[in-house]
């Protein structure tokens, strides 16, 4: 249990962040947490069930849209909006799952991509509800978390709780069954597992995580537009999972950190931040194909083995 003090110190540092960081950097931290949830939801499917999705941006964005619609158009409490948003995301995830889980590999990727594009199309064209190109705006942040630090703490608490839930999930018998399907779906079937039902449940769990992220993103941004549900968001989720390391779950925090810093800090110094990101991504794929956290995990045993020698 030597890791406990380190863990507690890390937690304390995260909680204390609002006293250290100015407002803007704090808003970046909120974005890191929110996008880490998106990355984690992709990772849950990609890393543990072997199903890489390109439709999670749509699930994430559905929660953003629904929560904003509830608070801005229907004038419901933003908390209810958040709950309904998450519920809608799970629902969309279930629909996606029902259509996509029978496939695997590149077919799964393409199907989720297509389904995501459907959601994007709906958001773009159903302008009486979604506001079309202009999107939905306003009133999604309850008075309780109107200040930057309060919002940060809420997002932090929700993220930590969700991450803990996801961690527990992948280590449960259910999570092990998902890994079994990833390694050999056929063998799991012959062992008597209902792989379709398991994958649908896994997809729903992943949708829940994406939905929580999307709902919180709505509270943070107070704005939803077709670009929130667009392919670029799905790609961002996948990139985050890959940068952090697929199958590491918490690698998403690292991946989201890298992505948000590139987008917001590097872009201050160069307009070519997307080129920087592309080059970095190529470098990552060559030198650390298992992602940053994945690579660290691979290095650690070696380092430990070397120690007695020195």
């Amino acid at each position, binding site marked *: 249990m030597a890791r406990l003090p380190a863990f507690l110190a890390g937690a304390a540092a995260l909680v204390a962040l609002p006293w250290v960081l*100015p*407002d*803007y*950097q704090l*808003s*970046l931290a909120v974005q890191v947490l929110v996008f880490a949830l998106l990355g984690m939801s992709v990772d849950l499917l990609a890393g543990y069930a072997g199903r890489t999705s390109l439709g999670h941006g749509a699930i994430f964005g559905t929660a953003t849209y629904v929560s904003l619609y509830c608070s801005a158009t229907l004038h419901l409490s933003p908390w209810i909006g958040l709950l309904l948003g998450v519920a809608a995301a799970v629902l969309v995830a279930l629909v996606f799952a029902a259509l996509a889980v029978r496939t695997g590999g590149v077919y799964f990727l393409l199907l989720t991509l297509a389904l995501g594009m459907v959601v994007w199309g709906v958001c773009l064209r159903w*302008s*009486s509800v979604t506001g*079309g*190109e*202009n*999107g939905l*705006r*306003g009133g999604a942040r309850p008075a309780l978390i109107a200040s930057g630090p309060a919002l940060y703490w809420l997002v932090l608490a929700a993220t930590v709780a969700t991450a803990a839930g996801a961690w527990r999930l992948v280590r449960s018998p259910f999570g092990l069954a998902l890994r079994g399907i990833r390694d050999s779906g056929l063998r799991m079937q012959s062992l008597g597992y209902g792989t379709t039902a398991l994958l649908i449940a896994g997809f729903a769990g992943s949708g829940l995580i994406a939905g929580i992220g999307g709902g919180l993103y709505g509270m943070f*941004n*107070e*704005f939803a*537009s077709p*670009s*929130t549900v667009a392919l670029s968001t799905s790609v961002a989720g996948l990139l985050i999972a890959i940068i952090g390391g697929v199958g590491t779950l918490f690698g998403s925090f690292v991946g989201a*950190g*890298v992505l948000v*810093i590139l*987008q*917001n*800090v*590097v*872009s*201050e110094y160069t*307009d070519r931040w997307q080129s920087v990101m592309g080059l*970095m991504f190529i*470098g990552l794929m060559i*030198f*650390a194909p298992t992602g*940053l956290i994945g*690579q*660290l995990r691979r*290095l650690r045993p070696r380092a430990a083995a070397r120690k007695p020698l020195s």
Partner: protein
Amino acid sequence: MRRRDMIRLSAGTAAAALAAPAIVRAAPAPIRIGVLAPLTGVVAAGGKEMVQDFSWFWALHGNRAGARKVELLVEDDGSNPDTALAKARQLVEQSHVDMLVGDLLANTGLAVANYVKGTGTPYFIPIVAADNLTQRDRIPNVVRVAGYSASQTTHPFGAWAAQQGYKKIATISQDYTFGYEQCGGLAQTFTAAGGKITAQFWNPLNTADFSPYLGQLANAGVDAIFAMQTGADATRFIEQYASFGLKGKIPLLGSMNFTDQSVIRTMGPEVEGIVSAAQFAEGSANPTTQAYAAAHVKKFGTLPSLYGFAMYSAAMWIDEALPKIGDTVGNPKKLLAAVESTTLVGSPLGYPVTLDAYGNPIYTIFIRKVVKNPQGKWWNVPIHSYPHVSQFWTYNLAQYLKQPSYSRSFQGIAKT
């Protein structure tokens, strides 16, 4: 080992980047203007012109307003509302700008406007034309400095079209707010004057092929066609209109951006004779306008576009307002009051421009026709003008605000 070093290095770089301190301020504090423009994405060409003309004004004035230095912090909104919002947040919270200026697409402007509603940062929108920002959903710190609202130019255009004896018009517009509002302005005043809108088409942004629409427009039996298109869509529509043999057969009326310099400067004889309505005409005989256009040609080799003109005028507007408040630029309320009470005297339009009570300028609206200038370039020349046009046209303000905003389903068409 090398790999580990690399990871350490990148982690270190990331940490250093995060911890980078805010830019050190010089004394006396410069005026910091955050400029948002789409430098990438679908409207990048327009965005570059925005930044170019805005910076040009300040460069002509030594990058100073009175005794103070003016610092421009240009950020790319990526033609994307989420990016625009992130950049606005960065400029306000990180760079502590005194004001934000810019954005092109309505959705980016609406996203930023919603954000500054909370921060109170003055946000000037010379190009974002969404009617409601200075009408039904007015935000006090969002002001259309040197800007225009979408239906402001098409209200007189509809009345003009009716006066030409056109009885029936068909419209084709881009399927988004700017299209609904520009088209709605024309439809409302044209039908109020007894005209009929026989058909309305809505094409998605970035329509590659207009032939399905052109076939129907050709057979609609109308006296004129009104096309609301911007950017590459405008270029394609004009080209295809000509190649369908409709040019010269059915008069073509266009929205303000339809025959903008950014569209026609690279085109051929197919643009000749298209009529549009706007507050600015680079071919106006007014000596101030001509001097401005000539200076623009000298500097950049091109005639000024609406985007460039609007951003240049906005810079001038800010420049004329700043002396009123002396050292208190950091106070957003004072800055807004100064800008709102300013009468722009140096405008390239050649007459003083003021804002109405809702923060939208009052203009002479030109009905313009595309002709060749003496240098052989296409430009828009006024053929008629409507002086003193506000965003409310001739309507009673309270009544006008009660009608719904223009949309696909509401085009203000008079019931017969």
